């Protein structure tokens, strides 16, 4: 089990390898990537920032909860901070398990809890030079600031 906030590109294949084990018959990888449209407005790039020490703790807690609930310690989660471009991976979660149902459920649990609890923020950059803080929960803009 491992949880990390990182400021370099995420290697999702390496995460899958990290959870692989001959006892496991099922692996699930979730990756979140920067996408073009957020409610219709073209996004050029993002920056993610975090309350680093707390985000690290929350991710660790969430992974430990998933390990307990779904009975596997083969869980790895990484979340990236810094500037990301279109298509870049912002978060990756890999879970392996003897059984597929729990592998899916554990990966889903980690991303849902991360989105609720991890103190991470995202600012979208638009083609016209503006940048806005975005709230994932409500999709409302929670702040506006010229770049």
């Amino acid at each position, binding site marked *: 089990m491992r949880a990390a906030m990182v400021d370099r590109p995420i290697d999702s294949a390496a995460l899958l390898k990290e959870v692989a084990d001959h006892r496991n018959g099922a692996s699930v990888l979730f990756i979140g990537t920067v996408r073009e449209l957020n409610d219709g407005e073209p996004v050029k790039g993002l920056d993610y920032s975090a309350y680093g020490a707390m985000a690290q703790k929350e991710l660790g807690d969430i992974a430990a909860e998933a390990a307990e609930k779904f009975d596997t310690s083969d869980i790895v989660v990484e979340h990236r901070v810094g500037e990301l471009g279109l298509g870049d991976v912002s978060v990756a979660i890999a879970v392996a398990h003897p059984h597929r149902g729990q592998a899916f459920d554990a990966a889903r649990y980690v991303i849902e809890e991360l989105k609720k609890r991890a103190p991470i923020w995202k600012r979208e950059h638009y083609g016209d030079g503006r940048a806005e803080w975005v709230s994932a*929960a409500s999709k409302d803009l929670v702040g506006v600031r010229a770049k």
Partner: protein
Amino acid sequence: MTVRVLLFASYADALGRPDVTMELPAGARVRDVLDRVKALVAGKRVPDKPLVAVNQRYAREDQALGPSDEVAIIPPVAGG
């Protein structure tokens, strides 16, 4: 006692800086910090009851603070 208060993202923008150090009376609680922060950013995008963490754990408004605690005001999160 001295408490360090961290602000992030849109709240840091509202304050114009990412942290502030406060002198608080003994027995102060999270809500006392919130009152001070709201006075500092008057009307600027910090809601009435934002999320708060003390020493990197989510905390309630009535949590008592100790010397050298680290308090953080947490805007709506958007990881993932």
